[in-house]
């Protein structure tokens, strides 16, 4: 039990009940969990028979990384919830996506200074999954270590601590503060230029992977996710159609016919947003009013770049039902 206490002390919010069910023997597995080399079993996707002895283990692991109750509707934006992550039914699909996108995802995982945003993307879609039970957890939970690329785990550990070191170095990178401030306030100033001091309209930037420029939408002009979604679809469909087949830098960012179809079918792209805390969340997980309150910007991400977010269409649907 002492090990558990030790583990619990790493967690800033009281752990959930599953912790108490764990046996002391889970401790060893916990160390393996943190041992990055062991997590190289990422690529294997099968639900092998490790479920039962991992049940306890994984609950412990869940505890370690969870700063809130698994299954809770907490809106704590720093919550890491591999438990919820585990519940995604598409987990078996993930590894293959990993392979396809391993270059891009691994690119994001650099030795030090991992992008908090990206790692949090993985772990903070808390509510778009179904209300989970412990049993449900255990079935898929073992996927956690296997589906997270090596680097991610280290990031996970660090996610509860301050953001990547480089973001905190004073005066680095050496860019003139005038320049930094100007680029940072571009969004704010545009609201002023539009003549609306901010209370009437709520403009947020919308970017899309592969798009040559950003758009802006006024969140207050929609009343629910559906309207937003179709407006964005229109906006970016027009644009993507216009750019189909155009010359320009070839490469993975270029949209083509197949991708366009997938876009329209909502398969390959997901809508995400950055909230006030700088975390990237899947759109649709909170009530609409709360959403427009916290949303800072929107991004239409490629599915494989948003590991763990591939079930977006379902999620949006779900939240529409709730909202």
């Amino acid at each position, binding site marked *: 039990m002492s090990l558990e206490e030790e583990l619990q002390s790493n967690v800033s919010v009281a752990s959930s009940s599953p912790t108490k069910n764990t046996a002391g023997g889970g401790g060893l597995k916990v160390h393996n969990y943190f041992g990055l080399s062991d997590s190289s079993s990422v690529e294997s996707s099968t639900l092998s028979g490790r479920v039962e002895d991992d049940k306890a283990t994984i609950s412990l692991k869940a505890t370690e990384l969870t700063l809130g109750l698994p299954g809770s509707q907490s809106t704590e934006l720093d919550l890491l919830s591999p438990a919820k992550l585990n519940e995604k039914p598409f987990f078996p699909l993930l590894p293959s996506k990993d392979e396809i996108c391993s270059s891009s995802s691994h690119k994001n995982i650099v030795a030090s200074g991992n992008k908090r945003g990206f790692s949090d993307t993985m772990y903070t879609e808390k509510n778009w999954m179904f209300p989970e039970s412990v049993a449900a957890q255990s079935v898929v939970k073992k996927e956690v270590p296997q589906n997270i690329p090596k680097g991610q785990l280290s990031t996970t550990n660090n996610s509860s601590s301050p953001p990547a070191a480089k973001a905190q170095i*004073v005066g680095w*990178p*050496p860019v003139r503060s005038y320049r930094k401030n*100007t*680029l940072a306030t571009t969004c704010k*100033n*545009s609201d002023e230029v539009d003549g609306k001091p901010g209370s009437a309209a709520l403009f947020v930037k919308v970017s899309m992977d592969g798009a*040559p*420029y950003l758009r802006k939408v006024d969140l207050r002009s929609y009343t629910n996710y559906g309207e937003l979604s179709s407006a964005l679809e229109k906006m970016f469909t027009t644009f993507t159609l216009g750019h189909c087949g155009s010359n320009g*830098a070839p490469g993975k960012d270029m949209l083509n016919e197949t991708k366009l179809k997938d876009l329209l079918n909502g398969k390959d792209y997901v809508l995400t947003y950055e909230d006030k805390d700088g975390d990237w969340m899947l759109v649709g997980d909170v009530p609409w009013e709360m959403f427009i309150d916290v949303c800072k910007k929107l991004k239409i991400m490629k599915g494989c770049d948003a590991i763990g977010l591939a079930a977006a269409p379902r999620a949006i649907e779900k939240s529409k039902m709730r909202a």
Partner: protein
Amino acid sequence: MNRAIKSRLSTSEMNYFPDEVIEHIFDFIASHRDRNSISLVNKSWHKIERYSRHQVFIGNCYAISPERLIRRFPCLRSLTLKGKPHFADFNLVPHEWGGFLHPWIDALAKGRVGLEELRLKRMVVSDESLELLSRSFVSFKSLVLVSCDGFTTDGLASVAANCRHLRELDLQENEIDDHRGQWLNCFPDTCTTLVSLNFACLKGETNLAALERLVARSPNLKSLKVNRAVPLEALTRLMSCAPQLVDLGVGCYENEPEPESFAKLMAAIKKCTLLRSLSGFSEVAPVCLTAFYPICENLTSLNLSYAAELQGNHLIEFVQFCKRVQRLWILDSIGDKGLEIVASSCKELQELRVFPSDPHDEEDNNTAVTEVGLVAISAGCPKLHSILYFCKQMTNEALITVARNCPNFIRFRLCILEPNKPDPITSQSLDEGFGAIVQACKGLRRLSVSGLLTDKVFLYIGMYAEQLEMLSIAFAGDTDKGMLYVLNGCKKLRKLEIRDSPFGNAALLADVGKYETMRSLWMSSCEVTLGGCKRLARNAPWLNVEIINENESGRMERNEEDEREKVDRLYLYRTVVGTRRDAPPCVTIL
């Protein structure tokens, strides 16, 4: 007659030349360094040079006092002053550190100097100074402020109102408190002499009518850079009444323009056949950028480094048509692919700056540039001599290739965004890569290094960088030897700035005399201690050794200070006027 001929042959007889002749010869010599050399030849030349010197450059405003300057150069017309150390640009120097303009204006006014031109960098300028300036110098023509702060648009209003012959008002990247007043209205109707007007850094609204009237009555206007409050239609009108523009800074227009407005804009742009330089674009719909296609080919200077909203493809589409561009400032959203296209299109490129669009890596941005872009540029642009490159990663192999392709670099500034990052392929330090650069580029004058670096890179720099004048070091080196290699090797070093590197007292104190040959040394978050700095100050009374404290509220208590305490920020510089008296509490001068 014979004597005259003999006197021409003998250099020691040069004194017999009438002063007016010598002065006339000196008029052809503009470079202040050459002038400084001339003044050292003999007393006579020193005197002649003094009275004929009209332009003075002062790299550190605390190296000399305004009174002494005026005594030596009473016929001064143009003054350039630099204040805060370079790292002040990155918030490493407290705002109140110093660099105040006022004492200079005061002294120049009292000395009845016929000042016509003032260029300032990183100085603290107040509205009072600007007002005094505008009233004291009847022939004042040109004010250029770069990275300054401390003033408001009220100060600009005084300049506009009182400087009857103003030709140039150029405000670059200053922090100006915009009172949204009517400073543009303060230019009298009789003011028709403007050649250059740049107020791009003003954040507030602009009186468009006043601006248009001003531009309309300024037939000599060659350079106009407006701020983001100047929308599309206004820009069109401005360009229509100033088709002679050579240099244009565009404001901000976010929305998709009406076809008619757009057509008018295009028509106005087409008429600006003399346009060679383009900048601004802080928020622009890509279609508006396309309006400039007709004059793309004429551009020699293009600054899109504030165009944060434009993504790679649009940048590429535009830049590839700028075949004559010599100076290109751009964001890294252009990507490696974009740089490859630049390399194949822009053969006249001489200076390239690639800034990070996402300095803190907050957006999951995969299009930042890498060594690939740099290599492409070096291979494709034979005239390249200056580069500032922010990138995600760099390899030794790439740097070696770049060095081979471009031995003509004068300025090479590489910033790998992540400190201490090694060569991603070999996991080694970048010593060899930078070593190749300094070895190949024999004319290198300015160098900034980054990434994982050991003492070895400094050995290379000391050995090969013979012309190096300015070196910037961050998160590099292992021991004092690194810094010593540089101090001992780089004979022409003038400015050395170091942060977060393990150099300490041994390096600092090894050759105190070296600092007399340099303008300044900056060391922050290094290993030098208070004791070391004190020792230095004792041994070099002609240096100002400033300790800038972390805790800005109080000076160090002499009795309580621990000499073993590491100094957070050290800034030392040679001076002929001793300790300055305007230092704030957070600065201790030893």
